[in-house]
């Protein structure tokens, strides 16, 4: 870990301004991902702006009938929130499927959205990785790729977004609220928040460098069975091979997003009308144009079968 300086600003705009004026600065909230990456010198900020004290830790009802989740609400608290459990079950389930109790106690809503990939080559600083070191190459393309992306990837990067929460937020049509150094506020649809790697895989999201997430808002609840089905090699504490976040009616109709398959939560709204016709017709559309590696081609079949499981659950 390189030495760094540290400050605790008193407002979100001040925090954004602090990051804007200090070269190589980063926000820190729970630190559950950033500190690990700093120890490995994958992230090397020289200044940390601690946003924990910014009073962004409330879950509030919105006038539109939805919820506004403060950026600093801890994963444990959000998963346990009575309104979330009642009206946004897919979100609560996704959160509880992620990490471990200790990590969820510390991890925040905004930080969870910003967690970085678990690609093994991103973590090994002796190996080429375009996401870690732009232009160095992608080792995963012809390396160990069983856990990596099957769609939306590029020649430069086949990393996945590793999270669960964002997949649920994607199916819920969440909106990310931000403030920048000038105090300007912005709303970013979750669909537009995470990027595809393209030729700039080092950039995970559409946030500007000095832009601070202040909240995530959920629209009013969507009726149906809320399902988060995470498929993994062991029963706990593992990243998703594939996950399905779905809100489904008895006829199978509804909405679905997939995790563990791309650089962002993967949702193709145009395919959702086919949900009552079964999983295969939907996943054929959702994964049209997929470019899996030999090691991860199984994810296409797995996505179809996991969606089938969700449909079966909704119909039961």
């Amino acid at each position, binding site marked *: 870990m390189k030495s760094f300086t540290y400050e605790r600003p008193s407002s979100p705009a001040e925090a954004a301004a602090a990051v804007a004026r200090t070269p190589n600065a980063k926000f820190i909230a729970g630190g559950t991902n950033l500190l690990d990456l700093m120890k490995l010198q994958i992230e090397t900020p020289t200044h940390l702006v601690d946003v924990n004290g910014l009073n962004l830790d409330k879950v509030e009802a919105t006038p539109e009938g939805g919820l506004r989740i403060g950026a600093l609400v801890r994963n444990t608290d959000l998963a346990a929130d009575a309104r979330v459990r009642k009206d946004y079950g897919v979100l609560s389930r996704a959160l509880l499927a992620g990490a471990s109790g200790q990590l969820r106690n510390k991890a925040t809503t905004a930080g969870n959205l910003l967690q970085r990939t678990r690609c093994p080559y991103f973590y090994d600083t002796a190996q080429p990785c375009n996401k870690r070191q732009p232009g160095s190459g992608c080792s995963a393309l012809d390396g160990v790729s069983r856990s990596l992306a099957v769609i939306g990837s590029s020649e430069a990067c086949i990393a996945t977004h590793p999270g669960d929460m964002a997949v649920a937020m994607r199916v819920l049509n969440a909106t990310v609220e931000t403030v920048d150094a000038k105090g300007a506020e912005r709303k970013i649809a979750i669909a537009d928040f995470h990027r595809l790697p393209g030729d700039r895989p080092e950039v995970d999201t559409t946030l500007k460098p000095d832009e601070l997430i202040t909240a995530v808002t959920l629209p009013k609840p969507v009726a149906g069975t809320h399902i988060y089905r995470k498929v993994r090699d062991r029963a706990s504490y593992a990243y998703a091979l594939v996950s399905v976040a779905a809100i489904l009616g008895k006829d199978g109709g509804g909405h679905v997003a997939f995790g563990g398959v791309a650089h962002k939560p993967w949702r193709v709204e145009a395919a959702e009308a086919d949900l009552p016709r079964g999983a295969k017709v939907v996943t054929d559309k959702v994964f049209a144009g997929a470019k899996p590696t030999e090691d991860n081609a*199984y994810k296409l079949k797995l996505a179809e079968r996991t969606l089938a499981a969700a449909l079966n659950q909704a119909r039961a």
Partner: protein
Amino acid sequence: MKFDTPAGQNPIDQLKVVGKPTDRIDGKYKTTGTAPYAYERHDVAANQAYGYVLGAGIAKGRVRRIDTAAAKRAPGVLAIVTTLEHPRMERGMMNAAYLFGGDEVQHYHQAIAVVVAETFEQARAAAFLVKVDYAPTAGKFDLAAEAKGAKPVPGDSGEGSGGNGEERVGDFEGAFAQAPVRFDETYSTADESHAMMEPHATIAAWEGDKVTLWTSNQMIAWGHSSLAKILGVPKENVRLDSPYVGGGFGGKLFVRADAVMAALGAKAAGRPVKVALTRPLVMNNTTHRPATIQRVRIGATKDGTITAIAHESTSGNLPDGDPETAVSQTKLLYAGANRLTAMKLAHLDLPEGNAMRAPGEAPGLMVLEVAMDEMAEKLGIDPVEFRIRNDTQVDPQDPQRPFSHRDLVGCLKLGAEKFGWAKRNAKPGQVRDGQWLVGHGMAAAFRNNMVMKSGARVRLAADGTVTVETDMTDIGTGSYTIIAQTAAEMMGVPLDKVVVRLGDSSFPVSSGSGGQFGGNSSTAGVYAACVKLREAVAQRLGINSADAVFADGQVRAGNRAVPLGQAASGGEVSAEDTIEFGDISKKQQQSTFGAHFVEVGVDAYTGETRVRRMLAVCAAGRILNPKSARSQVIGGMTMGTGAALMEELAVDTKRGFFANHDLAGYEVPVHADIPHQEVIFLDEVDPMSSPMKAKGVGELGICGVGAAVANAVYNATGIRVRDYPITLDKLLDRMPEAA
């Protein structure tokens, strides 16, 4: 004490203390954080600095240049030792890879420098500033590709199981060709990491030309002589101390880079230096269980009598490394007149393959016991019955040589009864419980019982306290407790009057911990020392030692009863002895046996496998402490479940290293993966093994359990996966429609 005839009646047979499910006596220290592990020995040497080991970033080639200028200027840096400043160092016992020195890189993450600084963070940060210029060369990293050129080689795991490159009995090929029912399949097992909780760690301090290493090592005497050789100092100038070991599983049998780099760093810095390997270095710098490709052929008559059996295994290793001895058990487990076993070794430039819990038998049984399941199905015979039908009471390669005691059949029968095997549906893919396809599988467990020379010193103080000193280690197994139980039984005192001190190279040389030989051998050494102490006590008290009874803290003879401590009233009474085993273990085959029964659920949609129920029945001689023995067996069952379902060091066959080199990428079973486990020990003794009449149990639990899981997955799904680990991607294509 020489042990060369079967044990007769002795004080251990009283079973007042031995054989009881005693809580571990070091438990209170472990649970209160007062059992310090190597890296936490803050009090042993003042002014400790921190060393950070830099691993090579290439798999094979040469280090051309190492630029340490920036690192040396970094805050807090005290010293940097690089591999180019140092001639290649001698290797210690059983090291295949060189640990340090010279410009040649043999494998990824080979230690090429240690940076010493005032704090750990400073050492790590400075290590990132070391610039290394490599000249990489092409290497061989793909076992499947290299297997064709592999040659038969003899090999030994260093823990006893081993043999010649090829061993034959009768005419395998002829008998197999003529067998009415034939089976021939090939399987593969994965590279696995020991993944012990405590990484390799050492604090080293020099005083003049003498060095002390507070380390984490299973085999103190081996480590002691190895470090003297590697560091080029006389043995009497080296001391090792390893009282607590946070898991080893074979990964700490031999000296590794942590000890060498701590010693070199301490010398360079002129201060005590502590070094722990990072998790990536545990996986790529140290050793692992090598992957194997195994072929099994079985020929049998229609009634299920095996007439021909062959087991061939191919593994890879660095040039001076050994093969994985995966065919060992096949020489002894089942009858059959015509036999062939062979071990082949391919040259690979991956990190060193070496012993991991039940080397040989663990991956060997993962294959043999699936083959037996497949053959049983082919024959239309229940797999339990098929095994019983082919039981042998003699060494099939040398029928004049009986087993000392073998009750595999007892394990199979009791296990089948307790598990409810008769209710199992033999036809695969038939049982459904909601989303789960439910299956049942079983396998035999087998692991040889090895005996090792083992010494101890026992001291009696005037207050009646008995202190045992031996360089035996407790790697989480319960050595402290069973040694205390042994001394308490022998000296007739309660457990709380016994003090056990372990892991110091200044203590008498013991068996150490490995190959499941430690429990029986080290307690037998303590037994021998106690026999001597009893004689010395009797002599001091003027009692004929043959008449002396040691019980209730007293020595009694006739009408006389004296407090034990009285013998030491004029000064401590001390005795030291070593148990040495004659050829008794050669005349008769000593092995341990068991049967595993497993129920799994396989998600009908996703192919995820979760274990639902596990039972092991074990026959391993006298069980010295049923509680710690059970812990050993359930730990083995858990580890074997990992090998069957998830553990795999993923080889990057292009760049030559294990890519998933942390515990987020290398998954081992967690609590949610393991259901209630049941263990039953058969009530038996084996007087051929030692005066303790005990045998090893630390590795028996992992032997065969992976095959039982695999057989259960087959029973659940009808899909036979012959490539471990059985992850869902290998099932999905063949899974039936779920809905």
